């Protein structure tokens, strides 16, 4: 536990988060895979010819991906030697200027690993030569962990692509998952309408998916990333609607007769939709096939219930319910064994299970005035929790990244709701949107 505190203090140097409540140890095994973090040095890659103007985008993306993975202590560039290798052939047994691995292993750099390489324009393409070397090794053969070429378009998008791929290979070597190709779906508010939008996981390529001219809100993404289910006011009352993320086409769904059908989410196998319906006269939890057939009631209670979320390992449904101030509850798949998870203080909303089913992200006003939501992380088995945001506006709708370590959420800390990502220990905050009003993000494959 002591080493856990040391690791966290290193991670929190740039972004101080007051973890005033809860144990704080909850997510260390999630974030840092146990043990200490290796020291990583990353050279500024140079580019020849047509690749040269793209190096800002490349180096910025590479460094950011590695830093926000939370897996490394990034050695400050102010400690770097005067020179650095671009190709393995340039490495010398001894140098003193940075052309030997020992220059990076020793003080003041003290790096365990060195990422280096260069970019070139070849045949109208951008080619990245990327290397990851263990600085403690004596020969190039034993030092090389990665030596690979990556290809992209000869533009900024291509530079970011190859940087993402190289970073993902490094991250996967140290136990992190890949986020490449994943998308974030969210709600963009424009005047009186709200539509579903999508963007790449790094905030690039933002574009609308729906054009309802009404309210398209509260999206959920299927486990395979191919479908979105959401709540639509296009017909006048809130109803469930589904679209394909690949084509944008609406998928047929027959809503049951009710004044309210809303807040859908997918079962772990992607074949069942769980949602809230007022068919009985009060909002309760129901399930149905993906086309709305075979709908059946799951829970029976006297309190409003919304936002059902099935645990990825099955067996348990988390949801939000009254009576009175909204709290997070869980029940089994038959709607029995209902149990409150939050302690009754304040108001809680937006439960989200981690991909391994062990932990729960949610929004809670505990310790703050009504409406003062922050992102919390809880282990429902022990009820231990961490507070991940504080004193920074209203923070809601957390959603896990596929790697089970990052999350995305919405915050109005700058005055308007924008979408942010961070690690599940509250560090490495990154802002992903800045134009418009953006809420309810969900992270899909």
């Amino acid at each position, binding site marked *: 536990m002591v080493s856990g505190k040391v690791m966290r203090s290193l991670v929190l140097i740039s972004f101080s988060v007051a973890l005033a409540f809860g144990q704080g140890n909850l997510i260390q095994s999630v974030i840092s895979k146990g043990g200490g973090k290796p020291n990583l040095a990353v050279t500024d890659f140079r580019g020849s010819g047509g690749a040269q103007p793209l190096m800002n985008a490349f180096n910025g993306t590479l460094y950011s991906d590695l830093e926000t993975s939370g897996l490394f202590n990034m050695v400050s560039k102010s400690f770097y030697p005067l020179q650095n290798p671009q190709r393995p052939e340039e490495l010398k047994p001894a140098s003193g200027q940075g052309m030997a691995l020992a220059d990076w292993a020793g003080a003041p750099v003290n790096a365990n690993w060195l990422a280096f390489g260069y970019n070139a324009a070849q045949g109208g393409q951008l080619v990245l030569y990327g290397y990851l070397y263990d600085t403690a090794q004596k020969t190039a053969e034993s030092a090389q962990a990665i030596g690979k070429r990556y290809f992209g378009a000869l533009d900024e998008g291509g530079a970011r692509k190859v940087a993402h791929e190289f970073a993902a290979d490094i991250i996967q070597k140290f136990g992190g998952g890949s986020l490449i190709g994943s998308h974030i779906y969210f709600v963009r508010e424009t005047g009186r309408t709200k539509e579903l939008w999508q963007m790449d996981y790094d905030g690039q390529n933002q574009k609308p998916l729906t054009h309802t001219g009404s309210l398209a809100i509260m999206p959920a993404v299927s486990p395979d990333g191919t479908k979105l289910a959401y709540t639509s006011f296009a017909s006048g009352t809130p109803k469930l609607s589904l679209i394909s993320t690949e084509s944008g086409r609406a998928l047929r769904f027959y809503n049951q007769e009710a004044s309210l059908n*809303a807040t859908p989410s997918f079962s772990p196998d992607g074949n069942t939709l769980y949602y809230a319906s007022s068919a009985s006269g009060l909002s309760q939890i129901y399930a149905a096939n993906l086309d709305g057939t075979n709908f059946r009631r799951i829970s029976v209670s006297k309190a409003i219930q919304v936002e059902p979320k099935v645990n990825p390992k099955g067996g348990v449904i988390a949801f939000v319910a009254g009576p009175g101030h909204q709290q997070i509850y869980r029940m089994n798949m038959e709607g029995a064994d209902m149990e409150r998870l939050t302690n009754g203080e304040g108001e809680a909303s937006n439960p989200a299970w981690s991909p391994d089913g062990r932990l729960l992200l949610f929004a809670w006003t505990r310790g703050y005035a009504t409406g003062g939501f922050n992102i919390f992380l809880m282990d429902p088995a022990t009820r231990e929790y961490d507070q991940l945001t504080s004193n920074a506006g209203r923070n809601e709708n957390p959603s896990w990244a596929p790697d089970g370590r990052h999350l995305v959420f919405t915050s109005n800390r700058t005055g308007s709701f924008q979408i942010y990502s961070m690690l599940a220990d509250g560090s490495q905050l990154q802002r992903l949107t800045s134009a418009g009003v953006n809420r309810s993000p969900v992270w899909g494959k």
Partner: protein
Amino acid sequence: MKMNRTAGTICLAAALALGTAACKKKTPIAPPAAPIASGNTNAVDPNAGNLKPAILSFSVEPSSIERGQSATLRWSVSNANAVSIDNGIGEVQGTGTRRITPIESTTFRLTAAGPNGTISGSATVNVTAAAPTNSGLTPTGTFEQVVNSQLSDALFDYDGNTIRSDAQQALNKDADVLKKIFADFPNRSVVVEGHCDERGSAEYNLGLGDQRASSAKAYLVQLGVSGDRLKTVSYGKERPQCTEANDDCYQKNRRAHFSAGQ
């Protein structure tokens, strides 16, 4: 010795040593934008200083409606400590919105006063006679006009759907009006909308708004209003009628509201 060199010095030295073109420093990762000052951003500005009041925006949307329809006044004022709008609106905060249902063309005048002066501006909403409907014009007006002007909201406590005494008074009157409306317009229905203030989550407020609409409808049905002609819908906190962050506006939004149905 090396420890004291900055990244820029190393970079330049390396460029010189290797004879390469000007080497690019890594673009630093931008930190998240600083949070705005805490507190009510919609309050009139007490620290107007030397600056004169300014009307950043004052508009009505849409600017042209049919009699019986509603529009929204929007305004944003800076450097003022007293802001008011005529035609029945009164004193307001520096930034806000207000839903209006004027029966004739109206020019709203906003006046903003600060220690360094006073400024005013205007916004006009044009109201035209509604096109005749199949139900025809009656002495009391079109169906939409009657529903929008003669039915009062029922207000609720926070997180509650109980019909408290002031809501009972409103709904008792609404019941009589509804019975007359349903007699005068035999083919039309009225929608009971459930709304919430903005503080709870949007998801839970959909459920709560639905419960409020149902409670109001049940109360009216118990007074003899035809349930078949009353539809319910929840807008949760999606369609607030005001947006100021104060108790007065929060209470206005915790309501069951009536609108014209099919």
